[in-house]
């Protein structure tokens, strides 16, 4: 991955934050909201964008008669996010930050 070919998924901070939260395991909508400090509407929009891009797996279920949506990263999501982080690290290393 090059700096000029960053996928659409990583072009907003909220989407990067969502990916960072999901890289350590599956999360519910409520948990993602807490981790990213975002609003319901904004988070929902970015999640559906990531879903359309094929980065997320969504599981809907009822827990104690309440609907709960759980999100996790697909293989594609994990691979591309790792590539993106390596790219950032390389960029910083080349600039003398690391």
């Amino acid at each position: 991955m090059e700096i000029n070919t960053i996928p659409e998924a990583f072009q907003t901070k909220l989407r990067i934050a969502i990916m960072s939260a999901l890289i350590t395991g599956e999360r519910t909508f409520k948990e993602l909201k807490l981790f990213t400090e975002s609003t319901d509407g904004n988070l929902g929009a970015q999640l559906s964008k990531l879903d359309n891009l094929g980065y997320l797996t969504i599981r809907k279920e009822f827990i104690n008669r309440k609907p709960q949506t759980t999100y996790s990263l697909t293989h594609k999501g994990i691979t591309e996010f790792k590539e993106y982080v390596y790219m950032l690290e390389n960029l910083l290393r080349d600039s003398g930050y690391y």
Partner: protein
Amino acid sequence: MKSKVEIALEDVIMIKKVIEKTQQDFSRISSFFLWIGIINFLVFILEQISYYIRNIMGLLSSAYMALEKICIVFPIIAYIVCFLYFRKKIIGNHNDISNGMLKVWGIILIGSYIFKYLYIMLLPSTEIDFVNGLWRCSELIIFLPIIFGHFMTAILTKSRLLIIVTCIENLIFFALFTSMREVSYGTLGGIGTRVSLSSAFVRIVMILGMILLGIYLKKRGSSIHGNKYDTGSISN
């Protein structure tokens, strides 16, 4: 205009902060402690019912004897079910602190309960003072691992408040344990029995203490999710 390097640096810092926040999320493990408190509350109710039956129907009634056995078996089965359920729930989150906490508490609760049961089985049932002293020591088998668990939880969550509360809890227990005082217990429908004050305190810790610990961890998780890391810019 920010350079690419500055943007990259901001992104790396943010990624690290979000991952760090996910590692300090205790909201899932907090329910484990709430359930341990509820299980112990159910055991307390079962004990009261069994004493009530004993007071009404006598020591040799089959209902009392059956309930007495249930009071021994129920917590161990409930602890195992609870441990397995939360292990399954937490394992997908790769949260090392919660995972570690669950393992420590699983060993403490299940291990100490089995050990206490085996210890009691070995004791002769006589009224000699020495044997009574050994009976009282069975409280230590339950309480000392719990104190250890509370200290471990305080260290893992870096909570000073939890360390102070555990120290106070420890002092109260040993003051009560050495005072040798007793209180009436299971007095519904009759005279019931007498238990040591320290034993009553262990019950309170196992019910109220665990529920409060669960609520505290849930609240602490929420406060960590607050503005500590200044993540307001993430949603932009």
